[in-house]
């Protein structure tokens, strides 16, 4: 009987109840507006990051420039441990200056052991490190900087995951490296980077893909880097980036 009375009243006043619920939802929207806007603002504040790498006799330096705001980036190994806490690995993170949200973070691997397999999983807030890749109109540019103390050629094996149409040309320096290649995925190229004075001073290699329709995602690994023995022992150095859950990255 009571149920019947309730449903009778519910049915009678359903329009008013809906309007009331509408007001409640609008009020909730209003309450959520401020944190929502702040969250959006935060997302919009964050700019791009940049990355440079330097190869020394027995070390490998990765330098990241990124927005850090008030947070400190978290560095994790492939196993998920925090890299900063691992002995033998050096890292510094510093804010560039108080007026800028941009931080410079230098991070040096010393005494690299044989068969080391280094995965850089670097997350900061919601952000994931990646290569500096830019696509402008008809070309894709990847920029890497190498600095070698040895006055020798560096041989790089590039593992390219790519697809491009037949009009595109991929050039490395002055060499067209896909001239006789079919459209393929995961192609490996062994490329000799001839050192010249400019390169030795501040190496700058550009990969250009003319008329590209696709973004190229590039993972590269360096092989047989003719530095000293220690480096020679590092048969393979793979740099790759993958997602770190947000929860993991928060300190």
């Amino acid at each position, binding site marked *: 009987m009571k149920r019947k009375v309730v*449903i009778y009243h519910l049915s009678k006043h359903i329009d008013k109840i*809906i309007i009331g619920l*509408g007001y409640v939802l609008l009020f909730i929207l209003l309450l959520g507006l401020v944190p929502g806007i702040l969250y959006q603002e935060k997302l919009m504040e964050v700019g791009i990051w940049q990355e440079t790498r330097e190869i020394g006799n027995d070390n490998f330096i990765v330098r990241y420039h990124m927005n850090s705001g008030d947070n400190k980036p978290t560095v994790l190994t492939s196993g998920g441990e925090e890299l900063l806490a691992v002995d033998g690995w050096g890292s510094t993170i510093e804010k560039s200056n108080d007026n800028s949200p941009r931080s410079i973070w230098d991070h040096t691997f010393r005494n690299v052991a044989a068969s080391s397999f280094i995965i850089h999983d670097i997350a900061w807030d919601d952000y994931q490190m990646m290569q500096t890749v830019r696509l402008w109109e008809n070309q894709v540019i990847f920029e890497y900087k190498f600095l070698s103390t040895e006055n020798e050629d560096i041989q790089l094996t590039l593992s390219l995951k790519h697809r491009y149409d037949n009009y595109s040309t991929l050039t490395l320096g002055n060499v067209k490296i896909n001239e006789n290649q079919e459209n393929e995925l995961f192609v490996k190229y062994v490329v000799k980077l001839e050192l010249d004075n400019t390169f030795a001073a501040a190496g700058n290699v550009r990969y250009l893909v003319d008329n590209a329709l696709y973004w190229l995602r590039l993972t590269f690994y360096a092989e047989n880097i003719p530095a000293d023995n220690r480096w020679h022992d590092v048969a393979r150095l793979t740099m790759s980036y993958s997602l770190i859950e947000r929860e993991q990255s928060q300190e």
Partner: protein
Amino acid sequence: MLKDRKRKINKRLVLLIMLALGIRFALINLNHPLDLQTWHGLFVDLNQNRSPYTTFEELTYEARATQGVGWSQYYMYFAYPPMLIPVYYPLAKLYGVFYPNDQVNFSIADVDPYPQVPLLLNFLFKLPIILADIGIALLLYKMTKGSEKSLISYLFNPLVIFVSAAWMFDSIAAFFLVLALYLFERRRYDFSAVALSFGFLTKIFPIFALPVFCIEFIRRKSWKFVRYALIFGAVAALVTLPFWSGVKLSFEYHSARQPSGLTPLSIHFVAWAIGASESTLNQLEFVILPAVGSFFLIAGMSLIYAYLSKKEISLRQKLLMTFIVYFIVSKNLHEPHILTLIPFCILELHERCSFDKKWQYRLLWMLAFAYAIIGAPLTRFLYGYTLDMGILYLFELPMIVKGVILAGVVVTFHLILWNALITLIRGRPVVSLEGLRQRLKR
């Protein structure tokens, strides 16, 4: 005699369905480049037993790192509820048998992709969509007591053909929605709730029908609305929970997405055209207009539900009015979305046809189609056949001309939506095409 007639009708129906299938399968190699990248990624992810939400999250973080602002706060990948995962999992596995090493090269955020995929992928992806189209047509046939006209109107509507064969999976969600209505009318309430939940789990919009069904119970002074809502919620929770983090990110994406498509809230394009600064545009696109959109959505839907709760009209009409209002207040209204209105318009035309309603229906889908032809533009769908930019962008108009035309289409489209809504509420339109025709005749 009766048997012969029945057999004749059945034969004709089969022929019509075969023709509809034939037309659709002939068009499967047409695609929207950005969306095809998503379907391709979905197949590759599922074949590798990887959740497409994980890829969506990764791409989103990468996009934020490279772009930082704007469009790329979220990468436009798999930002849908999870129903497509069980639907496409077996098909993706089948695809994997033929293309085990297939990979996706996602375009950098904010850059148009031009994925080249095997024809098999197009076929397998579009198969459930096309079957859903047939399902809707058959439901309409049954719901209009065997009206062949209703079946034909849906199956051979150019917008429906284009959306299902070349673009989006809206027909799967629309199928579940129409099925929910059909089952509700047959008093199979539990199955109706399950079907509606499946619709919501395919694309979000069918959830706006849930209050209409519940209110209908309340109006009839029945407590069954509790059971209906619980079944809906339980099914939705069961499918959603395993993918909760990805679904949450998808919802975040949709709530923060800048208004676009056939909505007056796309006004930020005007600000862009007159040279507003980047920070102003960002504020407008990603903060102010989404907030205004949410306000409109809550206010508009509350008003229509309140109005319908006291109205003695058929459930079909109520759903039609609900989705008209939803399209009026929605901040993201793209051409494929209009497909949802079409079955309800056909039902309305079957029961209460008038010259005005007929033209309102025609203009609604024609304007949506016109928007796609100019906006996308249509020729870009040909890239499965050619990568010649001259052909792909043949219909691309100068930015200002395109903007003016699209704005005109949006305004006209909304005037017609309002006119259609008022026609349903008052029984006569504000601007009567019938009156106009008679005046012209005189």
